[in-house]
């Protein structure tokens, strides 16, 4: 039966579709990646600084060629620096979540079909991609310099393990972003991660049994560093594995807790 209204043509609500994958799409992902890459501070601290540190440390290290596990000391340093760079980038990417919420962007996104889960997945992918960039830059530098030596499969495996270790710091970035909101987040995360890297034996080797070692084994960088280097060293103390798992759980839990608290009024 045709009883169309004469005055107005109403908008046909039945023809409208819901986007697939909760709104997840590559346009959004590429714009998000561009945003991180355009941030000069993030690029300097997470791509250039770790590479520079790698060159400085290996150049001044007289024992760079001494064997470690299935490779040498330069390879050990390279994996550590890649982890540091990737952790910093991932944390920077994670800290954007809280900033976006403070700017009202998250609320704006809630007025679109974008599913909150799809949003978190995009953020995690951005953190992982940036982490992969950081790891690739340091590893390529190591390859060009020629001092780092380890079997190719160990090389690849350690890079992949390092990449997954960065998720811990993406969660840390989200968490700290909420605790210290605004543009200051990176000013806490930058020096904070450097300090944790020192403590956790990323910048220098820890001697088992010393006072510093007793403190270090409880700090968040220690576990992931041991895990990332395990393919090379063939060593992974049980407390290092527990450390890595616990800090991941703590940071993910903290991030989830702050986010849930913040959702009361979007």
């Amino acid at each position, binding site marked *: *039966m*045709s*009883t*169309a*209204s004469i*005055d*107005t*043509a*109403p*908008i*046909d*609500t*039945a*023809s*409208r*579709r*819901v*986007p*697939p994958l909760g*709104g997840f*799409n590559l*346009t*959004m992902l590429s*714009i998000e990646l*561009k*945003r991180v890459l*355009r*941030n000069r501070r993030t690029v300097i601290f997470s791509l250039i600084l770790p590479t520079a540190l790698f060159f400085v440390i290996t150049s001044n290290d007289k024992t760079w060629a001494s064997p470690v596990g299935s490779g040498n000391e330069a390879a050990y340093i390279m994996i550590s620096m890649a982890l540091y760079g990737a952790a910093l980038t991932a944390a920077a990417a994670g800290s954007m979540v809280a900033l*976006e919420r403070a*700017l*009202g*962007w998250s*609320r*704006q*996104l*809630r*007025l*679109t*079909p*974008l599913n909150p889960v799809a949003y978190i997945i995009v953020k995690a992918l951005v953190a992982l991609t940036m982490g992969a960039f950081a790891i690739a830059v340091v590893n390529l530098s190591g390859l060009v310099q020629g001092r780092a030596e380890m079997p190719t499969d160990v090389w690849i495996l350690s890079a992949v393990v390092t990449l997954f270790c960065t998720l811990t710091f993406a969660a840390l970035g989200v968490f700290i972003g909420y605790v210290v909101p605004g543009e200051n987040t990176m000013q806490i995360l930058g020096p904070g991660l450097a300090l944790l890297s020192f403590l956790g034996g990323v910048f220098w080797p820890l001697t088992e049994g010393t006072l510093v070692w007793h403190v270090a084994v409880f700090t968040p960088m220690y576990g992931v560093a041991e895990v990332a280097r395990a393919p090379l060293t063939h060593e992974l103390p049980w407390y290092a594995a527990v450390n890595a798992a616990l800090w991941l759980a703590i940071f993910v839990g903290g991030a989830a807790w702050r986010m849930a608290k913040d959702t009361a*009024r*979007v």
Partner: protein
Amino acid sequence: MTSTDTLTRTTAVRLAGVTKSFGPVDAVRGIDLTLEQGETVAFLGPNGAGKTTTIDMILGLSQPTSGTAEVLGMPPRHAIARGLVSAVMQTGGLLKDLSVRETVEYTASLFADTRSVDEVLADAGITEIADRKVAKCSGGEQQRLRFAMALLSDPALLLLDEPTTGMDVEGRRAFWSAIRRDAEQGRTVLFATHYLEEADQYADRIVLISHGRIVADGTGAEIKALASGRTLRATLPDADTDTLAALDGVTGVEVRGDSVLLHTKDSDTVARYLLTQTPARDLEITAKGLEDAFLSLTGDAR
């Protein structure tokens, strides 16, 4: 278009007994509201009246404590997922490090059906600044960008929260003429404002809200009548309140010591009566503002 005819009369918004409490604070205390498609409705009330809270529930950003909210015959989140509802917010909601075009592209990528980015940029008059960073845009340009984002999905319902804050007179006029054009296409528009003038000029219907309740609902003329009364104050010992209350247009009489206060819609008649038929002196006449109208209306509603 015959298949859509049955949808012609789907209500745009239906709120039934909606309340919202934040802990001990009752922000919305029971609102029943139905908006038909194609209506332009002003949500008028002072700050803190519950306008934004109600809009949040229509958008599905928050859940009513009790009652139900329905948009175009479906739960608000379902309507949002289909791009049927959009909102333009007062402030924020933009990423400063994106360009204008990137912001629109980003938003467009999230919907299943959208208009073209170029078309929307042109409609909002921001084609020339498309490559500019949002941080470098003026308040008015940012507002036009928000408007462009809201119109991307060609929504059936558009919610505007204090939309013209920060706009100059010219921008305000252009903004409203664009909104009117949309309404003629069948789009329902609900805007929150605390300016009676804006509500009267641009809305077909005004819903007056105060202390979380609807206190009046009608055309601009009807609402203005509520706010158009005057108060007369005179020194008149032993006033005959019954006679005064019976005068044409008098809606209230109060005695405070030797003074008498009269609320009326026809101040001339009452003034003439007081000065000629009674020993009243020190006569003062004050216009009853919108705030007074709110106060008297909420007083009645309690």
